[in-house]
């Protein structure tokens, strides 16, 4: 309708008359959106990096429904069934390339704080190290089968006390010798310590049980064949997924937590921005009382006054939303971030501002505008026409 468009245009043209307040409102909304997008960018980056760090040609098998290695448990016999499974690659001697593994948590002492922190100790079979992308022994040698020897991830050596090459170290009630230092190029495994599976089973009285089995797949369709094999083998009740899928699943919880951390903060700030928008729009209505009343006297509807004020509010908040998005994209997108948390200590990842989160941010901004403009707009619609006689 023409009158509504005219009133909207009058409202928008009046914004420069309250430049200070209007800019503050835009700024507050921009901040809300930037904070929201910032947190989501951290979460998204975390997820993306975790997904990248897993291999597509390595399968991980855990007991059905166990989700994490620590909750899983498999027998030696089950592991041997996988060794001959369909879809699993073979070595020169025609045995399946697998590694059955046991994972325990031990206490280490952090260098900086001199306090104890959790550390993952993994017992693995001979094929285990080579199944990690980018694995290399940077110093020393591999652990020998049957010996209480450790190879230590670079991250562990850097962060914890007592893991230098050649050192003896007591973990729990057992003494170990550090015989090698390895690197996987910054993946999660750099934060682990590895030993021979049999030795670890022995020292921790686990008999012949393991928690996970890793297997190299023959080809891209190897996973499906392995899954079909496990399905048809009544002695196996396992979840089979690629390492990439496994890491994505592991990280999604953490990523979700980081992403959602932004919400409470954004909402508190959004309430502040809303109060700002409210205040700005009330002054708009008050400053333009005589204009609004004059239009009503001429015959314009109360609805057009309402719509004009809402349009002004939504315009301010939409500009704020766009500015906040621009800030997030310019300053956060692609930024490197040092990950936190037990096993992800070494993980460095890039922030990523996604379309999904931009849509959410703009929606939040517009909601601030709609809510902030609502009551001022009602006031505009109810403006007494006799305000035409006010002196300015």
């Amino acid at each position, binding site marked *: 309708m*023409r*009158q509504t468009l*005219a009133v909207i245009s*009058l409202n928008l*043209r*009046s914004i420069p008359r309250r430049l200070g307040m209007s800019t503050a409102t835009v700024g507050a909304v921009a901040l809300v959106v930037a904070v929201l997008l910032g947190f989501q960018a951290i979460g998204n980056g975390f997820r993306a990096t975790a997904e990248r760090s897993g291999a597509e040609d390595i399968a991980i098998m855990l007991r059905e429904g166990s989700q994490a290695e620590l909750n899983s448990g498999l027998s030696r016999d089950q592991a041997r069934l996988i060794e001959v499974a369909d879809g699993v690659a073979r070595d020169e001697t025609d045995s399946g390339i697998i590694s059955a593994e046991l994972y325990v948590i031990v206490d280490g002492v952090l260098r900086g704080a001199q306090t104890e922190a959790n550390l993952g100790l993994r017992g693995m079979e001979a094929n285990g190290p080579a199944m990690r992308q980018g694995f290399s022994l940077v110093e020393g040698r591999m652990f020998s089968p049957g010996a209480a020897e450790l190879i230590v991830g670079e991250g562990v050596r850097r962060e914890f006390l007592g893991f230098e090459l050649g050192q003896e170290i007591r973990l729990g009630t057992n003494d170990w010798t550090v015989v090698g230092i390895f690197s996987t190029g910054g993946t999660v495994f750099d934060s682990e310590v590895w030993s021979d599976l049999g030795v670890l089973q022995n020292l921790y009285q686990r008999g012949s049980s393991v928690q996970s089995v890793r297997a190299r797949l023959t080809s891209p369709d190897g996973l499906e064949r392995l899954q079909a094999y496990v399905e048809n083998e009544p002695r196996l009740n396992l979840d089979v997924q690629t390492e990439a899928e496994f890491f994505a699943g592991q990280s999604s919880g953490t990523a979700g937590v980081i992403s959602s951390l932004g919400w409470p903060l954004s909402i508190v700030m959004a309430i502040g921005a809303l109060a700002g928008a409210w205040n700005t729009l009330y002054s708009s209505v008050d400053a333009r009382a*005589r*204009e609004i009343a*004059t*239009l*009503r*006297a*001429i*015959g*314009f*509807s*109360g609805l057009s006054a309402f719509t004009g004020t809402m349009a002004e509010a939504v315009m301010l908040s939409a500009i704020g939303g766009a500015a906040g998005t621009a800030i997030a994209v310019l300053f956060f997108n692609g930024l490197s971030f040092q990950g936190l948390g037990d096993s992800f200590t070494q993980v460095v990842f890039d922030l990523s501002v996604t379309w999904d989160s931009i849509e959410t941010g703009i929606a939040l901004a517009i909601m601030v505008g709609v809510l902030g403009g609502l009551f001022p707009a009602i006031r505009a619609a109810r403006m007494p*026409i*006799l305000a*035409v*006689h006010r*002196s*300015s």
Partner: protein
Amino acid sequence: MTALYTLTDLSKRYTRGKESITIFEQLDMTIDQGDFISIMGPSGSGKTTLLNLLGGIDRPSSGAVDCEGTRVDKLSEGKLAKWRSQHVGFIFQFYNLMPTLSAAQNVELPLLLTNLSGKERKRRVETALDIVGILDRKGHRPAQLSGGQQQRVGIARAIVADPKVLLCDEPTGDLDRNTADEVLETLQLLNRELNKTIVMVTHDPAAAGYASKELHLDKGRFVAKENT
């Protein structure tokens, strides 16, 4: 002469808290088609209130405001807004122009409520600006115009939709003598040439002299006196 307005038994009271102020009590009045009436009277005597009632931007406490058979006081808000847009033009002491719009855009506002095409609206806006002698300033903003020029824009806006009646509340109250005389001559011209019925409130006896009828409002009563 045919009556344009017939006010019958009109009362207007304001209640402020427990107090009640009576502005009019059982006032009767007729305004004929083609009248140019000036209303004078002391401050607070109800002159503006009377214009508000005539223009349908306020309602009487009781009594009837009849304009050509329409009971203005009985119209719903929506119908009243439409009636105002078609029947009355308001001219204010402080012009009440939209500061961000040009003279032409200000004058066009009442036409935005009609179905006229953009081209037709432009034609009418220019005609109105021409009648009040300010067509050469059509692109100027109010802040770029003198008080007298702004009031001319205000008058152009009041006449652009071709209403029968113009209601002017101290239209020259903010202008110097010469400018005031020019504006009053314009109003007189609109009355004589275009047959606009004009009701003008003023404090200025010289301004009142331009009208064909002078009324004095005092304590809610009229004292009429014809100009010769």
